[in-house]
């Protein structure tokens, strides 16, 4: 034992050659990934920022020219942009609230171990991993006003089903919200389940000895202890819903008209359908700024948790 210790300290010399060599190895291992990501992400970023100050329409033969902040100025006044912005925020807020509540309920149900639990959990995760385009087309079919199963089942409850995606902004957004909640609630509930399982059993035993009422235990102990998990879920769902694209693209295609566009879809259409590149780039820059703030929050959150 003692011999080992001596050897260890010998093996970790602090001489410069050793450190220099270590540094070189470390950097050369990261380098390929670093270069690729610079080329894939930072290159486009500069391209984007540069062109957000230019008027560049592919539909017009005129060459791109520098216009200063005009794209941003137009964006601020564009009702379509704000519509997409508020859609994204609505989906975010409603999605996070619904998925947290439902997820918590399911996590509590799954909390106690039972036979086949791992199978149930596995089946439960299927919606998360199936391609959004697959679930999107399926839901589109299921939500069909005439031939869809959803309206058919609603008719048993004497509810006349709406037109869903074809009708208006409200029902369109609701459709996307339903699909998003269906897809992500299992994930949320398993994060919360992991949180529940990390709570030491002893404190429940102590509460039991003290004769605390179950609902008091739940509100005064369980929920506060789940706080970090809820924060994590809010953060992750915010990030994911902020860039929501596939479900909207497949289910409503942003329609009717442009009523249910998300920010990503708006940017996509402006760029790839209207070919107004400069304008799309300025919308992109706004989203990047928002994302950088979120990434910072996430990093602070995860590093702090490790420290505790």
């Amino acid at each position, binding site marked *: 034992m003692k011999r080992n210790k001596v050897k260890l300290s*010998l093996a970790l010399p602090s001489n410069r050659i050793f450190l220099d060599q270590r540094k070189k190895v*470390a950097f050369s291992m990261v380098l390929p990934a670093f270069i690729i990501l610079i080329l894939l992400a930072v290159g486009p970023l500069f391209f*984007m920022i540069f062109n957000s100050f230019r008027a560049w329409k592919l539909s017009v033969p005129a060459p791109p020219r520098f216009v200063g902040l005009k794209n941003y100025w137009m964006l601020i006044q564009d009702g379509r942009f704000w519509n997409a912005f508020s859609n994204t925020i609505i989906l975010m807020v409603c999605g996070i609230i619904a998925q947290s509540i439902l997820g918590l309920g399911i996590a509590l149900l799954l909390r106690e171990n039972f036979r086949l639990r791992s199978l149930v959990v596995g089946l439960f995760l299927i919606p998360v991993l199936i391609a959004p385009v697959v679930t999107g087309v399926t*839901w589109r079919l299921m939500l069909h006003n005439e031939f869809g199963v959803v309206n058919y089942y609603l008719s048993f409850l004497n509810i006349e089903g709406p037109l869903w995606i074809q009708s208006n902004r409200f029902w369109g957004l609701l459709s996307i919200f339903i699909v998003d909640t269906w897809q992500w609630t299992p994930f949320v509930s398993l994060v919360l389940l992991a949180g529940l399982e990390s709570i030491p059993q002893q404190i429940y035993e102590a509460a039991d000895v003290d004769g605390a009422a179950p609902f008091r235990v739940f509100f005064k102990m369980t929920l506060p202890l789940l706080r970090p998990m809820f924060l994590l879920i809010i953060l992750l769902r915010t990030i994911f819903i902020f860039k929501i694209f596939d479900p909207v693209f497949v289910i409503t295609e942003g329609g009717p008209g442009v009523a249910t566009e998300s920010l990503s879809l708006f940017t996509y259409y402006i760029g*790839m359908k209207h070919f107004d590149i400069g304008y799309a780039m300025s919308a992109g820059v706004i989203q990047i700024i928002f994302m950088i703030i979120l990434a910072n929050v996430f990093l602070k959150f995860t590093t702090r948790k490790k420290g505790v």
Partner: protein
Amino acid sequence: MDATVHTTERKRSGKTLIKVIRYVAIVIILAIFLLPVLFIFGGSFKTQSEFYDTSPSIFPKAPTLANYTSAFGGEKTGTTTGFTAKGRLTKGIKDSLMISVVVTLLTMLIAIPASYSLARYKPGGDQISFFILSILFLPPVIGVLPLFFIFKTIGILDSYLVLFISHLFFDLPFCIWITKGFFEDIPLELEQAVMVDGFSRFRVFFKIAIPLAKSGIAVASLFAFIFSWNELMFSSIFTRSKVQTLPLVLQDYIGSAGISWGELLAVASIAAIPGILLAIFMQRYIVRGLTFGAVKG
């Protein structure tokens, strides 16, 4: 004495009642969440007329394999792309498989050394880690538009290469972040101990670190595979006719006039299989993956 027996008995029967209610609730919720999945597979065996039934059901009334044969044989054409109908699905499966496998291998080849280095030596402090994480948070649409013009200039649009490269945009940061977490779990003392025994840094990496982090590497590669397999936006922008991934084939069905729903769901069923297998067999790691390692689950 008599009273205590009575209360414990009542308590026990109350507990079984709660248990029964819990199981029933679990079954109902599971049914609701799996309904759309069953609908995909059930629908893929339905005849076209069944989709225009005003009392639709999940399961086919007269199961038929016609959807699969016609999807593979290819009578129907997608409208937006120029690819000939024959063998469209076969090509979709082949292209999707090929892209997912190559991208996964490429990603892991680059990600494993990078994540090990970031976990062990922390070159450049936390800056590089942060940079990698922030790419993960970028909306892909933001990368896609500029990349389209860059790839167009280089002249690699509508090729396998363009998807190999562009899928690294989301796969690479993700896999680095996940495997980094697994490498960090390996106790530093262990590596130091074998270095004392004369292992070189490379031998430590290959003989100690990689074998110990192999579950992490497996998890990361499966995620990389599924992300590439499911990806729609990049392939819809960067490729047109020479390369056709499965999500793109599906997307085209919607646009086509007089959708053959059964055929669409047959394609959807095939596209859904990897995700389903992964969900069932990898469930232990999915939460860890999807929270970017924040929950060790």
